[in-house]
């Protein structure tokens, strides 16, 4: 962004919004909106408390396990769907349904099936992330340069070789795009799961702070969560940009 000819560093607009927040907070417009400085000082107090570290660990664990399964299952499924018409016809309606379905409504069903513990939380997280990963991997494979596939076949590539050495790499830019969005959805998924299934992790903190109207604490946790999600998404974005050069070379 440029202002009066000067190039502003990325996300300068956040400073403006932060200032506005601080002013509104100091004016005590609503109990819901404490001053930003108060939020950060609370954050300074709680970040090394036992409860916070435990919440961070529990949430991080469920999140990572959830996205791990989403990636491990989602990418191969998407690639196979892009390769195989029959499989695509079979699975695509389901993927599209779940993609747009209100997954939160499914959580009670998962609780019945998988209990009230970590397992259900991880499965919920996976379910939030996996569909977009499948769809993007599929889209990546479907626009593979046909002659790359012919090339692999002409040199006698086995299906597994073609899968690992051609399809995966050729679809990588789209796959990474899908993984990035999947990760962001998984952040949503893990918190919703923690609120609905068993009150652990950041979900428990949200529940605790909002029920006691501890708004500075509440916002502090939201900001931590936002910062984590944002960093993760930016890291994946950087990775995606690294392979962008060959996505644009495709014809």
């Amino acid at each position, binding site marked *: 962004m440029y202002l009066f000819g000067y190039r502003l560093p990325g996300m300068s607009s956040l400073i403006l919004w932060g200032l506005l927040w601080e002013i509104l907070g100091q004016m005590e417009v609503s109990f819901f909106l404490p001053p930003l400085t108060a939020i950060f000082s609370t954050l300074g107090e709680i970040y090394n408390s036992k409860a916070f570290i435990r919440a961070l660990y529990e949430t991080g664990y469920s999140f990572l396990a959830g996205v791990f399964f989403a990636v491990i299952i989602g990418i191969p499924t998407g690639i196979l769907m892009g390769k195989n018409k029959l499989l695509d016809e079979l699975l695509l309606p389901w993927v599209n349904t779940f993609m747009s379905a209100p997954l939160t409504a499914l959580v009670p069903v998962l609780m019945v099936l998988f209990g009230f513990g970590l397992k259900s939380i991880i499965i919920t997280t996976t379910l939030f992330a996996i569909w977009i990963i499948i769809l993007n991997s599929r889209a990546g494979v479907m626009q593979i340069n046909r002659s790359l596939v012919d090339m692999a076949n002409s*040199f*006698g590539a086995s299906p597994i070789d073609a899968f690992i050495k051609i399809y995966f790499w050729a679809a990588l830019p789209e796959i990474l795009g899908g993984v990035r969005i999947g990760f962001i959805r998984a952040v949503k998924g893990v918190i919703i799961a923690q609120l609905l299934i068993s009150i652990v992790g950041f979900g428990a903190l949200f529940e605790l702070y909002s029920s006691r109207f501890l708004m500075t604490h509440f916002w502090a946790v939201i900001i931590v969560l936002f910062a984590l999600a944002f960093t993760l998404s930016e890291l994946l974005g950087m990775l995606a940009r690294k392979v962008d050069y060959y996505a644009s070379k495709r014809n």
Partner: protein
Amino acid sequence: MSNDQVENAVTVKNVYKNYGDVEALRDLSLEFPKGQLTSLLGPSGCGKTTLLKIIAGLLPATQGEVLVNGQQVNKPGPDRAFVFQDFALMPWASVIRNVAFGLELRGVNKSERESIAIKYIKDVGLTGFEHSYPHELSGGMRQRVGLARALSVDSPVLLMDEPFSAVDEQTRRKFQEDLLNLVKNENKTFIFVTHSIEEAVYVSDQVALLLPRPSRVSEIIKPSSFKNKDINSIRKDSEYLDTVERIWKSLRSYVE
């Protein structure tokens, strides 16, 4: 097996290819003599690339058979290597890995396939670019990589699908001269698809003229007298010019 089949590296017998109701090839038969370069020449839509892909085993024929060294084939094999019009390089892999990829798929170990790749990278004049990536190379250089990859698997038959159509004219002429040397020095059979009359006459021992609707071989032309001349004087040779003219006369009625 008749003597005739041994002399021909590739024989196409009564091949039909239909796409639904569309007849791409009808009863097409053609022989490709060993050690020679045969061009498949014709206007777009005459099925020349389809025929090449059937020979490569990348497309199944609806009917008919393809023999390579007397053996019927219906899928790709180590006896044939393919050079693609759009190069078909892996953008995520370096030049050396691209060149060695055919060998990699055949299970040749890394140090061995890389030393073979280095030799062919040198042969096509790309020494120093082993660790470059395709997007860092010009179109002509990329096709050299594609050619080195096809050569490195050392197949007796080389299938080339309009390999020079995506490079600029100067590079193209250089490639054509290089190809003549390649045919002379390597004991391989080349099947070369092109839509350029001059190119076909220039590089070929035999030109198969394909005509569309339905696709068939209308004529086989074997330019002879200028083949042993100096590369630089071919384009001035009177037989060369006459042959180009003759092919154009046959083709012009198909160009509207």
